[in-house]
Each structure stands twice: as C-alpha cells, then as structure tokens.
C-alpha cells in the first residue's frame, strides 16, 4: 500500500513518492527516484529501491498503469488520446525502466542490494499477477507476468557472478507451484539464451544454472497443486500450471536443454550424483537421458562410475537395451578404483549389477579375476571389502568355483588370464585361478589374511553382507586394531635394541644414516 512517511528513511525519496502518489501533477518526480537507482552509493540505491517498491506497488494496486499491449511512448504522447491514458502509458514506461534497472541490480556487488532488488521484483511479480497488465484473451485466461519473471531468472543465472547465496534465497519462492513451473520454463530459456550468445560460457554460469536447476524438486505424488504465489480467486482445471504432468514436462525440457551442452567435468560429477535420486524419477520420459548417460559413461574414470547408476536405473526400470554395459563396467575396474572418493558407491553398485544369478560364468569369472588382480594394489580397508565381494561372486555362481578349486589339472607356466583384454569374454579368466587371493593370504594385516584364507576351505553357501564394509575407512580399521584385546601380557621383542636404525644388516641401517 501507500508508504507511511514515518517509515521512510530517506526524506527526499519519501517526499517524492508522497508527491507522486498524491497528485498526478507531480509525476515527473519519478525521474528523480529512478535517477537515485543509478547511484553509486549503496545506501542511496537501497532507499531508491524501497521508494520504487512503495511507489509502483501503490500504482499497481490503484491500477494507474496502462493495461494491454504497450504502445511506444512517443506515439501516445503525440497522439490526442485522453490525458489519463497518456499518464498511464507514461507511468507504465517508467515502471518498465524501473524493472529493468532492478534486474540489473541483481548483479550488484553488495548482497543487501541484490536481496532487496530480488524481493522488490518478486513483490511486483505478485502484484502484477493479481492486477495483470495485459488483457485476458478469454474468460479464465491464466495470466502470469512472464516477461518480468524471465528477466528475474536471467538475472539469477548471470554468467558474470556467483549467485549461490541469492539462489538459496530464491529457493524459498520455489516452494510455490506456479513460481516453480515458470522458473523451469524461464531457466531453459535463460540457458538457451546465454549459450546462444557465447558458445563457451564461464563455469560461474554453469554453477549458477546448476544450483537453480537442482533446487527444483517436484512433488512425487500427484496432488492438488494449489500453493500459488500469485493469488487467484479460483483455480481453473484448464490451466497447465495445475497439472503435475505439465510440471514434469517442463522439468524434463529444462534438464535436457541444460544437459545437451558440454558441461565442465566438475559439474558432470555433480549432475550425476543427483541424477538417480532427484532427476530421473521426475522426468516425463526418463529414457531421454540415455544419450547423456552413455556419453558420460564413455568419459572414463569417476564420471563413468557415477553414470552407471543412472544407466542401471534405465536398464532396470525402463527397459533400456545396453549391450556393452558389463564390458564398460569391466573397463572401469582399474587400480584407482580402490582409492577414489566414490569407492563405496561404486562397489555398492557393482554388487547390485552383479547380483543377478543369470549372468554368464565367464563374465563373473572375469570380474572376480580382475578384482583379485586389482586387490594386489589395494590398501587394507579396501581389501577387507573386496575380498568378501569376490567370495560372494563365487558363491552366487557355482560355475566359477573352478577359480578356487581346480582338481586334476596340470601346473601351468603362466597365468592364462589376460589383464590387457578389454572384453571379459576373451580374458580367459575361467581358465585361471585366483592366485592373487592365495598371495593375499600372506598380507600383513591379520584380518585381510583371514579374509583371503576363506578360499582354502569350501565356500559357505550364505553370502557375506558387504554393506557394512563399504564405508570402512583406514582410520576405522586402525581403531579396531587398537581396541582389540591382545594377549596378556603383550609379547615383546627379545632381540635388544641397539640404536635407532637397528643392526648393521637391517634395511634402515643399510639405506639411512643418522647424520
């Protein structure tokens, strides 16, 4: 409503607003307010924004802005229409320039200004929604100030500045169904616009966009979408915004328009991390993600690893035919797999992928052999997980028991398994044995040695659950070892110490000197 003079902090702006609102004759004072918006001084700008908010808020409520297709200012001024119409058109033009300026202020260096600008814009949005500035074309026509909102979203995903704080503010508005729906539309537009303008947008833009996009969360169940920011007297069933299906469609369009671009690697990881959980379930047609996921799968390393999850959901739930899936998975197994951050996730997935008992024996054997090979370079915490993993594979597939039990077979000169072969079918793993596990029985850590010794006996039928072992860290292993009750008393070294480096023939004494 109309601002109270008492709440005005800046006297001049206050007076100007009062003057404009009280008499139309003083309308030219608007220019002074708008000029203050351009000021360098942060305080002044803030006051101006507040003044604008009050001024145009009041004008919008009073309906003193021109409604309909806005004619250009000159033609109206030159024309001979009524003074009222001229005033309204003129004021509407001032309002437009104010909104433009506020949109620019979203990129202001000071966060308070940004926040204030966003708040003001959203207030205008609400008021404009209830007092639309365009004529409804038919009865019950759904009107939303799309142009204004598009400007807001464009400001939010600006390629110039990191807006993560502002976006977290904006997240509050995304609770409203209509805002969310229109944000999805506006975001895809904004992304398209920016990428059209510059073929290689900055990482800041991608981060902003991703923050905005990932903040979107659709309701899982179809229910009454009636939580609207712009209040309507009654909601019509014909409006697209009231249907979850439309929301999903918009959601899908937004993500597809985002993902079709070449993303930076870090963003790839972020997207893939949330893919299975917050993107795929909300898409109207999840299969459209196939291209993205397969291309991610081909990137290699951690990204392929993460892409597997989404891919598996598509294969599992949406009947995707993906012939080279296991080959890809096999290709992903390299020494670094035990050291990457996503180790737990990867092995959880691998366990899931290999849980089917209908997999061919050669494939499972190849996986077992490959993992055993890699285990030769793994740290103890990973070994404690991967050894039961291999044993579980053997348990699931009795045909692979030959890997640990091959009676009546002559000694071999070399291992028939070919570690370089990319195709598990040709790796000849089934002709080999898990000598690696036998070697690991000599591992220095007692638990690892014990886990590897399982293959000496006939494997038990029940599988060992690896879920609690997935997240095992070296620190936990260390703590466990420390807490374990040892024999009483502690065994001691009986060869007396002679010095820091030990005896002459000790390794340390051979290669290091104290001086």
């Amino acid at each position, binding site marked *: 409503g109309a601002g109270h003079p008492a709440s005005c902090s800046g006297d001049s702006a206050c007076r100007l607003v009062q003057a404009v609102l009280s008499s139309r004759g003083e309308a030219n004072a608007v220019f002074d307010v708008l000029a203050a918006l351009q000021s360098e001084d942060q305080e002044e700008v803030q006051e101006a924004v507040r003044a604008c908010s009050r001024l145009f808020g009041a004008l919008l409520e009073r309906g003193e802005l021109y409604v309909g297709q806005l004619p250009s200012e000159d033609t109206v001024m030159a024309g001979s229409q009524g003074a009222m119409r001229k005033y309204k058109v003129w004021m509407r033009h001032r309002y437009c320039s104010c909104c433009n300026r506020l949109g620019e202020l979203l990129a202001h260096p000071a966060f308070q200004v940004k926040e204030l600008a966003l708040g003001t814009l959203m207030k205008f949005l609400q008021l404009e929604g209830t007092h639309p500035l365009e004529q409804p074309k038919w009865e019950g026509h759904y009107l939303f100030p799309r142009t204004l909102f598009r400007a807001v979203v464009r400001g939010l995903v600006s390629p110039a500045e990191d807006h993560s704080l502002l976006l977290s503010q904006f997240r509050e508005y995304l609770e409203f169904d209509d805002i969310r729906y229109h944000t999805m539309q506006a975001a895809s537009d904004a992304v398209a616009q920016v990428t059209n303008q510059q073929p290689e947008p900055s990482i800041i833009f991608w981060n902003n966009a991703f923050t905005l996009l990932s903040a979107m969360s659709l309701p899982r169940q179809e229910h009454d979408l009636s939580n609207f920011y712009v209040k309507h007297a009654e909601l019509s069933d014909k409006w697209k915004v009231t249907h979850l299906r439309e929301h999903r469609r918009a959601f899908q369009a937004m993500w597809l328009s985002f993902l079709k671009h070449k993303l930076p690697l870090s963003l790839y990881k972020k997207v893939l991390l949330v893919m299975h959980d917050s993107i795929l379930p909300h898409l109207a047609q999840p299969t459209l993600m196939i291209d993205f996921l397969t291309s991610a799968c081909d990137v290699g390393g951690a990204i392929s690893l993460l892409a597997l999850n989404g891919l598996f959901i598509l294969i599992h739930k949406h009947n995707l035919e993906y012939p080279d899936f296991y080959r890809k998975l096999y290709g992903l197994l390299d020494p670094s797999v035990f050291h990457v951050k996503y180790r737990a996730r990867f092995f959880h997935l691998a366990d899931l992928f290999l849980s089917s008992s209908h997999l061919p024996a050669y494939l499972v054997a190849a996986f077992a052999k490959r993992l055993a090979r890699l285990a030769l370079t793994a740290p103890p915490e990973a070994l404690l997980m991967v050894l039961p993993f291999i044993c579980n594979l053997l348990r699931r597939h009795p045909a692979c028991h030959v890997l640990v039990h091959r009676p009546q077979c002559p000694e071999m000169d070399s291992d028939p398994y070919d570690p370089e072969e990319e195709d598990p079918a040709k790796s000849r793993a089934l002709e080999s044995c898990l000598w690696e596990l036998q070697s690991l029985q000599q591992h*220095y850590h007692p638990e690892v040695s014990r886990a590897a010794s399982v293959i000496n006996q006939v494997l038990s039928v029940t599988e060992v659950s690896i879920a609690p072992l997935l997240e095992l860290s070296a620190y936990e292993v260390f703590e466990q070892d420390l807490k374990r009750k040892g024999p009483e008393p502690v065994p001691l070294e009986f060869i007396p*110490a002679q010095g820091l480096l030990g005896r002459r023939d000790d*390794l*340390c004494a051979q290669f*290091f*000197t104290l001086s």
Partner: protein
Amino acid sequence: MGKARLAAARRQAPRAPLGGRGGAAKANPNPFEVKINRQKFQILGRKTRHDVGLPGVARARAIRKRTQTLLKEYKERDKSNIFTDKRFGEYNSNISPEEKMMKRFALEQQRHHEKKSIYNLNEDEELTHYGQSLADIEKHNDIVDSDSDDEERGTLSAELTAAHFGGGVGLLHKKISQQEGKEEAKPKSRKELIEELIVKSKQEKRERQAKREDALELTEKLDQDWKEIQTLLSHKTPKSEKQEKKEKPKPDAYDIMVRELGFEMKAQPSNRMKTEEELAKEEQERLRKLEAERLRRMLGKEEDESMKNPNHTSADDLNDGFVLDKDDRRLLSYKDGKMNVEEDVHKELSGKAGIQGSDEEEGEEESDEEEAEGERGDPDSHSDLDSNAESEEESGKPPRAQGQTPGKRLRSDDQNTQKAARTELPYTFAAPESYEELRSALSGRSMEEQLLVVERIQKCNHPSLAVGNKEKLEKLFGFLLEYIGDLATNDPPDLKVIDKLVVQLYNLCQMFPESASNSIKFVLRDAMHEMEEMIETKGRAVFPGLDVLIYLKIAGMLFPTSDFRHPVVTPALVCLSQLLTKCPVLSLQDVVKGLFVCCLFLEFVALSHRFVPEVINFLLGILYIATPNTQSQGSTLVHPFRALGKNSELLLVSEAEDVATWQRGSLPLRWASGPSSPTAAEATHARLSCLAVCLALLKHCVLMYGTLPSFHAIIRPFRALLTEHLTRCSHPHELQELFQSTLAEVESQKQLYRPLLCEKSKPVPLKLFTPRLVKVLEFGRKQGGSKEEQERKRLIHKHKREFKGAVREIRKDNQFLARMQLSEIMERDAERKRRVKQLFNSLATQEGEWKALKRKKFKK
C-alpha cells in the same frame, strides 16, 4: 554335659522297647498274619514290591497312628487351650539328642550372657568342667592336687598304720579295748603311740594348711594385682608386638655384613660353576625357545589360545622385569628384609642379563656392574659424591630420592672429590612427574649427560626399591617417548640422542610391557587422528614429521613385528599403510620420508615375509616420477601418484655433469625433517640417491616375494618402467648396474602356477530315507513322544495315585472317627441302660418294699 547325658538316657528309654518290638516283628513274623499275594505269571525284570504283606500289623499301625493323632484332635476339638512344648528342637527329629542338648545349652548360655553381661566388656564367659569353673580349677590345680594327695596320703598313712597295726578302724578300736587291760603298765602304749602319731600328723597337716592358705592368699593378691595391671596392659600388647616386628628387620650393621659376606661367598662359586660354553649353550637354548615362540605367533595359528610370554612366566611375577633364574641363593635372602632388597637387585640384574642377547654380554656386564654400584653405593664410587651433591643442594632435586635408595649413604671421606662433585651430575634423580620435569632435567645437557640422567632416574626408582616406583617408571616411558618426539621435531633433529635413548626405552619396555604398549598406542593414535582430520578437512594428508616416523620405528624395535596379530604392531602397520597411500609426494623430502616408511614396512615384515601392496605401489610411483611422463604407463599408477601434472617428474635428473659426480651413499635422515635449500647439484645427487635406495628396496621386495604365487602379476608394472630406465643412459654407471641386476632378479624368478585346491572338507552325507526309529519301550512304562510328554504323563500318573491314596486315607479316617463315635455312643447307651436298669432296680425294690409293707399292713 551331665544334663545332656541325662536327656540322652531319657530318650533312650522309650526307644529301647520300640526297637525291640520292631526287631521282634521283623525277625519272627506271625505266620498267620502274613498275607502272600500270589503272582499269576513270573515276569522277568519286574520288581514286585507287594508280594508279601502284613495286613494285621499294618492295620494296627494305622489305628495306632490315628489314635495318636486324629483321635487326639477329635477329643480336643472343642478345647481352646493347647499345650506346646517350647523346648528347643523338641519336635525336630533331625537333630540328634546330643546336638539338641548342645544347642539348648548354648541357647541357655546365650540368654544368660545377654541378660547379665551386657555391660561386662572385659570378662569372658566362664568356662566350666563338671559344673566347676575352669578358672578355679586352673588356679587351684597344683594346690588341690597336693591337698588331695596330702589328704590321701594322710588317710593312706592312717590306713596303712592301721593296717600295720591290724586292719580297719573298727578293728583297731576293738583291739585297743581288748589290749587296754593287758598292757597298761607299758610306758608308752600302742594307743599312745598312735595318738602321738595322729597328733603329729594333724599338727603337720595344720601347719601345711596354714602355709597353703598363706600361699593362696599371696597368689590371690598377686592375681588381683596382675589383673589391675593387665587391664592397663591389654591395649598395648599388640602394639608392642608390632614394634618388635618392626624392629626385627633392622639388624645391626655387623649382622648385615656377616650375612652379606656369607651369601657372597656362597654365591660366587655357583656363578663360576658355569663355564663359558655352558653359558653360551644356555643362552642359545633360551634364544631358540624365544624364536620358537615368535614363529608360533607369526603363523598365528593358535592366535586365540592364551599365550605365555617367556619373559614373564611366573604367576607371582611383579611385572618388574625380574626373571626367575637358576639361582638358589635367593632362598636364603628371604630371611631378612634388608637382604631381600639387595638380593632383588641381584636377581633383577641377573634377570636382565638373561633377557638380553649374548652378543652384547660384555656391555651388559659392564652396565651390571655400574648398576650394582649405583645400588649398593660402594664406598669409593658415587655414593659419597651423591651425599655431597645432596648436601650442596645444587641440583635442586628433591631429597626424597634419598629415602628411596636405602643403603646409599655410606661414609664420605674422600674430600678431594667434593669439588668434582659440584660440576658433576647429581646421582639421584626423582622420577619426573610430568613431561616438563623430564624436559627440564634433560635440556641443555650433552648427550652423555642426558643418557646418564635417564639411566640414573631408572636406577633410583627401580620398582624393587619402593612401592610407587613402578608407576613412576611407567610414566617415565611415556615422557621419554614424548621427549624423543620433541628431539625429532627439532631442527636439526637430535638423532644421536634418540639413537641412545632407544636402548633405555627398550629396557623400560621389557620391564613394563603393558604401559609401554599403551604409550606407543597413544602416540600412534595421535598421529593417525591428525592425519584423519587433515584428510577430512583438506581432502588429502601430508607426510607427518620425523617424530611419527621415529615412533613407528621404535614400535618396531620394542615389539615383535613378525606376529600374526599384535596389539601394537598391527595398528602400526595400518598407520604405515596410511602414510604410503594417503600422502601425496610433493617434494624430495616426501620422497625420503616415503622411502623411510617403505624401509620400515619391509623391516616389519622381514621375518614373516608378509605381502605389503603399499610398498610395491609406492616404489612403482617413485620409479615413475623418475622418468619423463608417458601416457602408456600411467594407467597402473596408484594413488597418491598421478600420471600427469605437478610433481610427476619430481625425481627426473637432467644435469649430466652433476650425474657424473654422484656417489652412492646412504640417505641421511635429517633430509626428512627440515626444509633445506640444496644447490642444484646436491638436489640431483639426492634424487639419484633416492632412486638408488628405491631400487635396492625393490630388489629386496623381489627377493622376498619371489615365492608368492602371483609374483609376476605383482611385479609386472615394474618391468616396463625398469626397461625404460635402462634405455635412458643418463643414469650413472652404478645405478645402471643396479637397474640391470634388479631386472635380472625379476626375470630369474621362475614360477609355476599350481592350480588352486580347496581343502577337502568332510563329505556331505547322502540323504538316506531310513525309517524313523522309535525306541522300543519296556512293558509297563508309559509310552509316547518326547521327554517332556513322558515327564508330564509320569507326573499325571503320580498325581492320580497320590490323589487316590489321599482319598483312601480320608475315607479311613472317617471310618475310624465313625467307629470312635459309635463306640462312644455305645458306651453312652450302655451307661444309660445301666443307669436305667439301676433305677428300675431301685424302683422295683422300692415298689417291692412298699408292697411288702402294704401287705404287712393288710396282714395286720
């Protein structure tokens, strides 16, 4: 007792006829009363209990029982007052009469005691024998004896005389009266003589009695006096005893000397008895045993079995590093407290000598002597200085240490050494209570002095010297460890001191394995925690300081690294693994540290030949960063090494002239500690040295893991790298040779792949469809299902039988009662009839009389 016997007799009395009757019935059953239940069939295995019965006897017994119980009850049914016998155990047949009497007596005494002598604290209860106070008996023992003896003697003598003079008193009198008339003239008649005798004896007796009474009086007086004093003394007696005890272990110097000399004389030959060979043999035997123990632990087969440490075999071990030896003079040492201490030191020393290896026996002996000196305070050595130093108070050490080392203060006559003493170290040191104390004691001293201080702290606080010393020395271990850590973090690190302190640590650890292991665990946890935190916050760790590496090294020296599982070594291994996997190599310093860690790792597994993937990975990484980057080999690299990017050519050597001047040598540990800014040539030399060490370690690995079944799979990534190194001829000649020999070593490890075989497990038995076997039950037993079911049936059956029995009993009771009532009624009726008859009789007589009278009247 008399009472008890009486009561027993009373008990016996009614029992006797009862037993007699029972015995008679058993022995001679009336054949007419015996009822034989005829068996129709003879069945094997059936126990018959009711084949013969005595119905008459049984009925009589039942009736008797009923008359005693039921009838009594019946008769008393309307009476409210009951007679109860409250004597203890009167109705309890479980207690034997003797016991019963005892308990009754005890109760009585108790009651008596409670009531009367509540406030009588001093006096004990009076013990009696045949109703007489024991105290009285004791008191008058000899007197009574003499008295009775006297009296007996007196009577006897009288009798004797009487007998001599012709029989008893009566006879005597008769004879006397007979002889009276005949022998009156005689001057001294027999009677006179006798009377004289009697008078004499009576007089004697009187005198004796008087004397006795006097004595009695005196003794009584004495007793009273004594009692008075006793009350005073009674409190102090235990104390005086204690004092005696305390004083006891304080024999005078001469005694000590004599004993000492005696023991030494005895001890020496027994020590010398063993020849060098014998000693060597013993030592060898001991080492062999220890080695066997170590092997057993290494294999970890009986891991869960309770292990016995050979160092501490005794259950009475005080855990003070004392080992039982074949030294029998110890038995003597326990006679004397003081000597005990001295002997303990002896034992301790010999034990220590036993612990330590044969190869440094000389040194040990020296130290033994030194220690012995320190302990005994030989006059010509430190002890006098010690007292001087103490008197000077120049060290500011608390004089408490004095008290802790008895036998230290001896004569101080050497005046000229006093001066030297002022500059020298004090000889007694209190054990440090905090790390700061230790630090202040050690800081600013030379290496030798520091060692001496630590040594003396240990000696002054030997656990055998005082009670709290064990804890103090246990703490000392932790402080020393901390001190070593500080020394290692110094710039430059004080490695020489650490080198010597390690020996002290080893000795302390041998004494207190528990606390030592806890301290080591603590520092390891600290280091790991720090690293974990860094990984959490920064995403990666950096190589820790030299102190952590040295702690790890020390852990490996104090504890057996070859054990399958060890409470300290296993965590230390995990810690080493973390260092090699989590810390990226960013500088030459890191390379040195990493190589040291590899070295440690390989040393830890040197005996057990266990496989360490981390070392292989790290060595591979080191070799990789010494080559120019190529895409092909990066794939096999493992974290923390990267195929490309910064530090991926860290060890690459380019300057040819520096290469030429390089000489192979050991890596100094100080390179690992502080940031140094070497010249380009030095850096190149360092790189080449690192590479050489890396290759040497790799060679070691190859030799050690050559027998592993998948050796070639493990070593495969190295081949390409080694050949690449070989093709580049920029390396110095020595290094080239090393490369070649390593590669040759790898090639020479031929291996046959033996297919894996599971151990044969018990064959799973085939499923056989045999019929279910049910136990064939005997006749008469209740058949049916499970054990519980059978038990249930048995109980039901028992209940039924008991129920029936109870019903029968009740029925019989009722019959008995009815019979009794009937007989009562009959009796009453008979009485009434009798009375009625009587009445009728009297009436009839009256009537008759009256009629007779009437008739008379009529007649008249």
